[in-house]
């Protein structure tokens, strides 16, 4: 895949990766002997090391490209690979079923639960059907309906987030996109069952947060979570959409940045080279983290769970007061 313009030392390293890949291929085609085998081994080791270095030095903009990779595992993939006995549930009982938001009953290591999230499509037909993973109000209302179902029967909720944002359209506005998201934020704050939210790809603003108020919030390594898309930010603040790369840097939206300021609880590592290289392994890594989180949350009495969910978000902000600086989760 293309990772954007080659402007830094990771670019030089990427060129070396390409060169090494070519050399390995050429040597592999030679008649094997002890000498070529040794060469191959040496080159492969070097390649592995370089790949690691390249991926550890990706710029925020390059990470965003990875989060949008067309082969990245989508929410349905994570549901299929992590959960058992999944039964999809449709509709918001008010207007329609939104294919950009999916969810249903399932079991997670034997435990009944509700799992839901935004869904993108892989081919053109699917993309259109899923509205490019951008939910309408009915999607958020369906999600809340499922969460209330979980609450009624004391089942934990797993949400998965991979959306560029809530859909900005005429119908969405007519049917109250803002109200649908606002309502979810308030109701998720007081839902009496554990909520674990995982941002697997794109965490696009209010459309992501609309199913993202959790007791634990995780991010995959190359996911991003932002108040606005870098393109949108560039268009408004730089008056130039071409400045998206600069905006991506300024917004501090990578998983590491957000973990550092305490907005996400943990970063879930991805397979070498990104989640798209190995869906199964990516899902296993998510699964392991979710298991640990659920075990922790199940041990907490409901009242305390709600208290700590409240303070989790209550403490977010960086503020100075005349009588001192009030900083949360951030470097002073």
């Amino acid at each position, binding site marked *: 895949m293309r990772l954007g313009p080659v402007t830094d030392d990771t670019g030089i390293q990427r060129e070396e990766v390409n060169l090494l890949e070519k050399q390995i291929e050429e040597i592999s085609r030679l008649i094997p002997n002890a000498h070529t085998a040794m060469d191959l081994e040496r080159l492969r080791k070097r390649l592995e090391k370089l790949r690691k270095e390249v991926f550890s030095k990706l710029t925020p903009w390059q990470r965003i490209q990875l989060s949008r990779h067309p082969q990245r595992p989508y929410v349905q993939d994570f549901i299929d690979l992590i959960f058992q006995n999944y039964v999809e549930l449709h509709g918001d009982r008010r207007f329609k079923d939104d294919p950009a938001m999916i969810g249903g009953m399932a079991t997670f290591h034997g435990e009944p639960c509700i799992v839901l999230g935004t869904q993108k499509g892989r081919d053109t037909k699917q993309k259109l059907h899923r509205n490019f993973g951008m939910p309408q109000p009915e999607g958020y209302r369906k999600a809340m309906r499922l969460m209330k179902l979980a609450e009624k029967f004391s089942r934990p909720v797993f949400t998965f987030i991979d959306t560029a944002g809530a859909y900005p359209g005429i119908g969405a506005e007519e049917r109250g996109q*803002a109200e649908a998201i*606002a309502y979810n*934020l308030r*109701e998720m704050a007081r839902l009496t069952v554990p909520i674990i939210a995982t941002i697997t790809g794109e965490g696009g603003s209010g459309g992501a947060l*609309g199913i993202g108020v959790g007791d634990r919030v995780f991010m995959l390594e190359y996911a991003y*979570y932002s108040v606005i898309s870098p393109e949108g930010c560039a268009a408004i603040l730089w008056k130039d959409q071409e400045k998206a790369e600069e905006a991506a840097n300024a917004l501090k939206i990578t998983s590491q940045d957000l973990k550092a300021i305490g*907005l996400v609880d943990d970063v879930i590592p991805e397979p070498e080279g990104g989640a798209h290289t190995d869906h199964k392994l990516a899902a296993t890594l998510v699964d392991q983290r979710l298991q640990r989180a659920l075990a922790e949350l199940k041990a907490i009495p409901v009242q305390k769970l709600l208290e700590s969910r409240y303070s989790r978000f209550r403490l977010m902000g960086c503020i100075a007061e005349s009588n001192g600086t009030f900083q949360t989760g951030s470097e002073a």
Partner: protein
Amino acid sequence: MTWFKKEKTPIIQLGDRTVRTEGLWIKCERCKQIIWKKDLESNLNVCPACNFHFKISAKERLEQLFDRGEFREYDKGLHSTDPLHFVDKKPYKGRLKEMHSTTGLWDAIISAEGKISGKPASICAMEVAFISGSMGSVVGEKITRAIERCLKNKFPLIIISCSGGARMQEGTLSLMQMAKITGALARLDEARVPYISVMTDPTTGGVTASFAMLGDLNMAEPGALIGFAGPRVIEQTIRQKLPSGFQRSEFLLEHGMLDAIVHRREMRDYLTKALDFFGY
């Protein structure tokens, strides 16, 4: 009146003298009528000809609503620390300083307590002149503190929104203010303490998609732009012109999102009736 249509400063003939009247006359954004500034002010900054509601400052708003214009301000000195060291065309720090010197405020909101027709009320009024009234950590914190004070002393809460949405310069922290405020609103709701949301021009983005839509009463001034996505973003997405009146107060009322559209002149009366109903 044709000579007024030019954008130049109007000139008035006084006998044989001419007087430049810069700042004394204002052109209505909607009906283009030229209005004498004093007339506009005595009409609460509403166009006497077409009822267009001009934007007013947070301070003016509070003075219009509280008895005798008196109120006590809270959390006045809270200000942003520029947590991301954000720089776009200019540094965010510099922008904040500039805004402070033009508005006299430290951020885009005033949190106040006072009386409306003798009834206690807490009002948070957003200041659109401060970085488009955008919501960052300070706005989030001041509103949350106001909610927590209302929880404690059972005062009704009124939030007057006037905002372009979440503040980009504080990144994801701004987004999290939506969750922070709505979490506090859930508690206010549970405690049965009333919350009235008043939406004014403009109320968009993360402000609409969090506290502005969650009032026990949602009301708006006439003609205010209210929505989730901005009209420009929608036009670019769907590649067609938006119908006229789209995302205006009247459109929202028609689609069931508002309890009422209330003229600025009637706002105090309306709030008084609501507070009566809530038992204050």
